[in-house]
């Protein structure tokens, strides 16, 4: 029996790669960095 192939995973890959590219293009990487280099008091349980 021939293996069942689906195009859905590849559609999702393209879609999320597009999301990733848009996010990077919008400057979200620097937002992540900005948050991550500061001590997160919420994560510690004191803020």
């Amino acid at each position, binding site marked *: 029996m021939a*293996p069942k192939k689906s195009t859905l995973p590849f559609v999702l890959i393209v879609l999320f*790669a597009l999301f990733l590219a848009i996010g990077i293009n919008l400057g*979200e990487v620097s937002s*992540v960095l900005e948050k*991550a280099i500061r001590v997160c*008091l*919420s994560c*510690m349980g*004191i803020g």
Partner: protein
Amino acid sequence: MPQLYGNRVMLILRRWIQILATVLSNAYWKFPFTRGIYQGNLKAVCVPGLNCYSCPAATGSCPLGALQNFMATLRPRFGAGHTHFGLYVIGMLGLIGSLVGRMPCAWLCPFGFLQELIHKIPSPEFEIPKPLTYIKYILLGLFIFILPLLAVDEFGYGITWFCKHICPAGTLEAGIPLMLLKPELRELIGILFHSKLLILALFLAWMVVSRRPFCRVACPLGAIYSLFNKVSVFRMTHDPDKCTLCEACYRDCPMGVKFYEDANHYDCIRCLKCYQESCRFGAISYEVAGIPLLKALERTAETDAPME
């Protein structure tokens, strides 16, 4: 007495990858001298597993923390003309999920690794009731998206609800070490810190008697990846003709999945233990994009019996 039916190459490889991922996610070893967290550019990259970005040794960002932060600051950012929706993080998680589903939980997550190590402590085994495994989806919807987005102050800022009220990884990796490194922070300890400490203690105790309780019950990151298990490029396959329903896969599964009922169950983390170690009948295999990469090994008790 359970026997080993395959070679253990994949299991040993997984263990080494888990160690490597944990070390690389926490490779800033100068923290005892700087008494602070790493602030380099690598922090712009989200790691695939649960690893608090305020851990003094952390070299990357936590995707859950980053995602909550995008939701919590979406309104004021939007008001200021910055259209930041968290697509960078959603895209990254979706891309990983589309490729391998929940596999990062088994191979790359430091907190998952910790749970496996703690469960090695000899103890009675308690199974986790199935209804509890749906809690992670409630936490994902409510604590990662809805509350950070909707419960806002007068300036439109929300808070990172999961980090603040629940995340035991944050308490273990950031709360406790930073309290030791920065004594001045101890003055800020209140009921919130104690409640998070209690949650951590409960999960640590639960890890001893149950398999990966945090992953199965409360991890929103695992919940995100699990949504892709049935549609990812990498998928597990089950051959019902070879399966004898012996339940060896279920007994060995670190997530308590009954593989023979659903080969791509939402809680399957693709550790491949069932494929490599449990099934002696070759009923378990996996495929990439619908193509079986490795044929199910025809393992029989006879051929796999230990050599004299």
